[in-house]
């Protein structure tokens, strides 16, 4: 068992150690070559897959492997427990992460060859893998928050990967804003869990709570899960996130990050079962997102954004499954969806080439097998839906009108209040007296 614990710790920490090593090397002025970076990445994830296989072997005979490190910090009766916990649910997500990130690493070594940000990409890829593995191997929601935040940071830094262009940078800020707004739900939910349930650890299950308390915790965490999983009404950020390089889009929004919200809800399943109301909200949210993703996806012109909306629709269905209590169906759905979507994202830059190849192989155009259900609707509704889908459900417009602009306006009002009695412009950093003083000193010198 000790060996399995050591392997679990290795799986979680390996990519973090590589990140720290690369970062320190860079700070000391050494940038490893592409060959070194891709070799180390390949070795790390190969070793991680092997280590995880050993953990899985142990999981045949035991329900969970737990590696405990005591309390990270403790104050009074408040404790931050530090332990990694791999049960069958964690194992699926850990396996998905190490295999897919390893594949992405291998793919990116070629895809980003001679790209100026090659080193930066791999640095962030390792940090992302570390954050994801911490989140999926966390034994408590406290530790899960840590991994969750790291995934968010790396996500936005990779959206802004092409930093010389303004749109990716602006979109990264927008995505970061949504993430942080939704993290408030996570923090408040974890606090409520500590306060009412007395623990935020999920290795021993949750105590029975009253319907109101269970619903409050579930809804707060659903807020966070919806943000990370781009569920309605937070879906507007997902198309914006497509500005990043294709491999990062594949791993974040096709596979791991987009399903982190679903993982949170899967961990919360025992408490969701205590609150049918919260479960119903999860189903409604998932259904709304699935419909939204399907409609918007049909009006999208570029490949990556189409795939993003397709992801959104599938994650919506996963949320519905979780809300209905179909835990393992949701897990299998996630696993299949993540794998297929990663492949689709990775092939998206060569989509036209693939089509041409397919057409030449079959000797002509492929017949259109799908049915356009929207054509059954009246033309006026079709046009309205098209416009609605083209503007992505007006979600960004609503966010701008009701959140961003009022906040900016309020900030402007505060700035005006601050400016009362003081004219701000023409700030001179060197006063005439100081200038004279400096000249006198200079002459004296």
């Amino acid at each position, binding site marked *: 068992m000790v060996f399995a614990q050591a392997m679990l710790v290795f799986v979680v920490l390996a990519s973090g150690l590589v990140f720290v090593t690369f970062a320190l090397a860079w*700070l000391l002025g050494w940038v490893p070559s592409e060959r070194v970076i891709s070799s180390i990445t390949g070795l790390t994830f190969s070793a991680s897959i092997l280590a995880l296989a050993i953990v899985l072997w142990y999981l045949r005979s035991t329900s969970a492997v737990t590696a405990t490190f005591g*309390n*990270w*910090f*403790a*104050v*009074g*009766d*408040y404790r*931050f427990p530090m332990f990694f916990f791999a049960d069958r649910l964690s194992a699926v997500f850990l396996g998905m992460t190490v295999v897919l990130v390893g594949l992405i690493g291998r793919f990116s070594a070629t895809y980003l060859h001679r790209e100026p940000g090659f080193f930066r990409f791999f640095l962030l890829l390792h940090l992302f893998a570390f*954050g994801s593995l911490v989140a999926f191997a966390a034994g408590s929601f*406290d530790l899960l*928050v*840590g*991994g969750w*935040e*790291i995934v968010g*940071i790396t996500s*936005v830094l990779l959206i*802004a990967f092409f*930093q*010389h*262009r*303004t749109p990716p*940078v*602006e979109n*990264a*800020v927008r995505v*970061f*804003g949504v993430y*942080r*707004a939704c*993290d*408030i739900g996570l*923090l*408040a939910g974890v*606090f409520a869990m*500590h*306060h009412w349930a007395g623990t935020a650890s999920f290795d021993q299950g949750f105590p029975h709570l009253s319907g109101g308390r269970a619903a409050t915790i579930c809804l707060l965490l659903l807020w966070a899960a919806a943000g990370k999983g781009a569920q309605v009404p937070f879906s507007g950020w997902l198309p914006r996130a497509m500005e990043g390089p294709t491999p990062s889009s594949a791993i974040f929004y096709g596979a791991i990050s987009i399903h982190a919200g679903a993982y949170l809800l899967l961990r919360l399943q025992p408490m969701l079962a205590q609150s049918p109301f919260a479960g119903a909200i999860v189903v409604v949210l998932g259904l709304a997102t699935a419909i939204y993703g399907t409609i918007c996806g049909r009006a999208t012109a570029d490949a990556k954004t189409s795939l993003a909306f397709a992801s959104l629709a599938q994650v919506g269905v996963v949320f519905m499954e979780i809300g209905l209590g179909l835990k393992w169906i949701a897990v299998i759905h996630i696993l299949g969806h993540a794998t297929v979507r990663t492949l689709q994202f990775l092939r998206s830059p060569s989509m036209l080439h693939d089509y041409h190849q397919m057409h030449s192989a079959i000797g002509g155009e492929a017949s259109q097998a799908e049915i356009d259900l929207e054509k059954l609707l009246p033309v006026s509704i079709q046009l309205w839906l098209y416009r609605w889908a083209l503007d992505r459900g007006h979600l960004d417009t609503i966010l701008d009108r009701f959140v961003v602009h009022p*906040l*900016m306006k*309020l*900030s*402007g009002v*505060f*700035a005006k209040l*601050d400016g009362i009695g*003081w004219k701000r412009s023409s*700030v*001179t*950093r060197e*006063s005439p*007296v*100081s200038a004279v*003083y*400096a000249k006198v*000193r200079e002459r004296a*010198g």
Partner: protein
Amino acid sequence: MTSVALTAVAIGLPWSAAVLLALIRSPLRAIAFASALVSMIAIALMLWTSPSSQSLQEGLMLLYACVACGATLVLPRRDCTARTLSGILWLLGSTLLAYSTDHLGVLVVAWISSAIPFLFDQWLGAHNWRPRLALLVSTAVLATAIVLIVHERHTLSIETLSRQRPGGMAVFALLVAAVVFRKGICPVHAWVGDAAEGGSVIPTALLLNGHFGAMLVVRLIVPLFPDTARTMFPVLSYLALATALYVAIRAVAENSPRRLIAYLALSQSACILAGLESRSAAGVTGALVHWCVVTISTVGLFAILRLLEVRFGDNLTSSAHLGLARHAPRLAVHFIVLGLALVGLPGTLSFCSQDLLIHGTLISHPLIGLLLPAATAINAITIFRLFTRLFLGKRKTGFTIMADALPRERWMLSACVVFVVAGGVFPSAIVTRWAVQTESIEQTVAGGLMTR
């Protein structure tokens, strides 16, 4: 060497060096750095010899001395003048004196002394009246409170006056007013932005991070007025939380990077006051840990901003993308790490401090306490936006290619990063060391006995 002698060295040497710098022309930086370093070593020795249960003030003194020492090192050559360096050393001596004394008279002298360099624009002051007025009012209010205490109790020893409620509600109100003015709590917060924008950046960062307001709460208000504090502190806490949110919103549309970082620093340091008042061990500990984080991070951020200003011009703005990361990648990395460390980046000390602060504040004020994570979320967005505006985007062509962080700058900034990261990985080293004293503050505010 006794503790008194070490304290004398730690305080006297920076003051002596400050006077010396006014008389000689070189080597200014070497003298300033050496005196700050010796001061730092003296405090480290004090910390080493003091029992761990009474190491709070030594810990905070060491933190401040380290930051001041780093400031002398990171100061750009353009700013490396006698007046700036002597101001930093003067401020160091004054702040250490305020932290170390148990005498009300000495405290007020240290308070005034720390404000002096910022009252004159020939020294370090901003070229506008609001910072001067705020510092003068806070000083006058504190001095009045102490005169009233002496008039009533005929003693200046804080230990003797402990739990005596000297001067009653009037003195309590005056002390709270001193905290409000000195810390920049709403509605008198505007001077902080003015000071950062119009004054010398790095010394101003040191002034703000003296945290004299929080120090006054911990050293004076809580021990002297435990009963009044219990009933009246929530008002100060609400004000602090309102300040944290107000200033965070205020920073959203701000385009001046100096002012913006000052508001972020103010918003986050207002959280310290909220935590101190939270009446829970988690909140008080979170406040003290956050004190360290805010000090290190904001001084680092101000330093990076100043380094950018001397390289790329004083008129940096966050209204457009400047793309400076191409020119200064190391400064960019240090900026984003220290910036996010200020707002709870996992793996840094602020993750621990924010966790404790949010937990403590929500326990004492379940609804109002939600302002704290909201303010932190807005601050995080603002700092990330500032980072993208300064460092990312299309590179400006008008800039001359300048050096990235020089070795002395790099080492100082890396030390800041190492502190926040190492603290984040091993937070217990700080949390457990101050456990006894945080417990005594918490018990006093929550209704127990002051056991200092």
